[in-house]
């Protein structure tokens, strides 16, 4: 394991490239690796448990039984996702002897969840757990155990919401996922299945962003990733820092705040003179997803003949606006030149649906990206917002 290099948090000053100045380099400032502290969890970008992940950040998370708090399991390669909410673990990575108490409804029936992502759905039971990460603990919160035997076959209304049931490490691409986005509840679909017939219910407590349940440092997170070279990197070590302005290592410094839509968590990204108001920054997306049919595509990514220096303007709901420069390289050339590469700051892909821009993990390299939770108080104001 790489030793984390202790660095003072580096303030991030957005370099605003002047129009026509030929900017577009990805030199947006410097991301720290957060140093150490009870609110700092090491983050690794690597090829993941399936060996095919790119631009996917992972952490280790420990879950303990609330009824037996010293009975714990630590799971590595949990994906860090600022685009979802709550902790989910693939059942098969937990020992069969490790049992968490089920969350039940008012009839004492076990609760099941259909968690829907853009690429599929995950069906599994909801259990109560003490969630520990770094020195922080969220006590007795609902978490989803995906693909556990007790959950059985998903009901038709669940399987109608996606292409495949991502209920194994192979199909899910990680041992689990920790949603630390700008909301608390996950807004997903819950069921109870008395007598084997599943029907939708409203649970007393949804699977929720664990950060909001920490005793302290509970108003948001900072994902801090160092710069990566233009030809990619086999692995990257960074930090997931809990709290905003709650400790000496998580101040906002000179970061600029972009507030988010209070319902959807989206902001506006303007690209090629078109403003896309349903856009977002997402550590769970592996590329700059743009709306641009002029760039050649291959293998689901962009493959321009030569690296493109592009610009986009990010505008918060608060009206704060800045232009950022970034590069899009030829994805196939990147992958073939560095077959072991998993971290690329210049990987782009078409958002073929074409109604929003999604700045995925490539945007995060070299930055400290803050995500403040809806309704939470921070020194920079009330969430939801992102800042960098």
């Amino acid at each position: 394991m790489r030793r984390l290099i202790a660095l003072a948090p580096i303030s991030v000053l957005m370099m605003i490239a002047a129009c026509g100045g030929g900017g577009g380099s990805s030199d947006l400032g410097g991301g720290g690796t957060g140093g150490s502290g009870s609110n700092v969890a090491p983050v690794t970008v690597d090829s993941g448990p399936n060996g095919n992940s790119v631009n996917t950040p992972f952490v280790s998370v420990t879950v303990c039984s609330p009824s037996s708090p010293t009975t714990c399991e630590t799971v590595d390669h949990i994906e860090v996702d600022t685009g979802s909410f709550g902790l989910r673990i693939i059942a098969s990575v937990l020992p069969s002897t490790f049992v968490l108490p089920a969350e039940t409804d008012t009839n004492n029936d076990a609760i099941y969840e259909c968690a829907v992502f853009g690429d599929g759905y995950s069906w599994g039971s909801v259990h109560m757990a003490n969630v520990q990460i770094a020195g922080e603990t969220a006590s007795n919160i609902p978490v989803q155990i995906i693909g556990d035997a007790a959950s059985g076959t998903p009901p038709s209304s669940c399987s109608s919401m996606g292409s495949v049931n991502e209920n194994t490490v192979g199909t899910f691409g990680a041992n689990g996922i920790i949603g630390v986005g700008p909301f608390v509840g996950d807004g997903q679909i819950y069921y109870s299945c008395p007598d084997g017939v599943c029907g939708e219910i409203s649970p007393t407590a949804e699977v929720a962003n664990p950060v909001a349940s920490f005793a302290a440092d509970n108003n948001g997170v900072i994902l801090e990733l160092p710069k990566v070279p233009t030809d990619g990197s086999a692995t990257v070590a960074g930090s997931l820092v809990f709290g905003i302005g709650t400790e000496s290592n998580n101040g906002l410094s000179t970061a600029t705040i972009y507030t988010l839509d209070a319902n959807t968590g989206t902001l506006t990204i303007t690209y090629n003179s078109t403003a896309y108001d349903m856009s977002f920054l997402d550590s769970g997306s592996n590329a700059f997803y743009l709306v641009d049919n002029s760039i050649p595509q291959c293998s689901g990514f962009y493959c321009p003949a030569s690296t493109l220096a592009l610009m986009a303007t990010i505008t918060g709901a608060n009206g704060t606006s800045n232009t950022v420069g970034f590069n899009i390289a030829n994805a196939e050339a990147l992958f073939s030149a560095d077959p072991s590469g998993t971290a690329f700051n210049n990987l782009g892909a078409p958002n073929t649906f074409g109604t929003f821009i999604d700045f995925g993990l490539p945007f995060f390299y070299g930055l400290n990206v803050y995500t403040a939770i809806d309704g939470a108080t921070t020194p920079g104001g009330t969430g939801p917002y992102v800042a960098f």
Partner: protein
Amino acid sequence: MKTIRSRRWAFGVSVLIQAVSLPALAALGSDLNSVQADQLHMKGMLHTTVASAYTVHEIQTPSGTVVREYATPAGKVFAVAWSGPRMPDLRQTLGAYFAEYTQAPRPLHPDHAHFEVADSGFVLQSAGHMRAYSGRAYIPQLVPQNVAVTDIK
């Protein structure tokens, strides 16, 4: 500039004036006059807009998600699109194409926010994250010649 804007505005009004409530809906690729199954299944409010090249049947579901079904003048559903806080019932919406969707190959380097099917006879693009999903599906051979795919959204 003002003239162009007002012309566009006037066009928008003319389209809206033609809006009528029709109960007829169907899944992708099937005939419009066959069922109103989608609307009933989704317990949604239906609003139909008639444009020159196609009609749009918009279902507002109780979750807040909007499903739009695009039909040719001959009454064939050539495209569907959705956006909102909950993924719609794609088994219902895609009809016979749902199986193709579920059996499509997975990407080499996947993430959880995007999935695409790009076959010669069926295209599906799904994107988004919790609380904000969107996507569309269409049958290239059925899209009327004067309709841009980018208009399906």
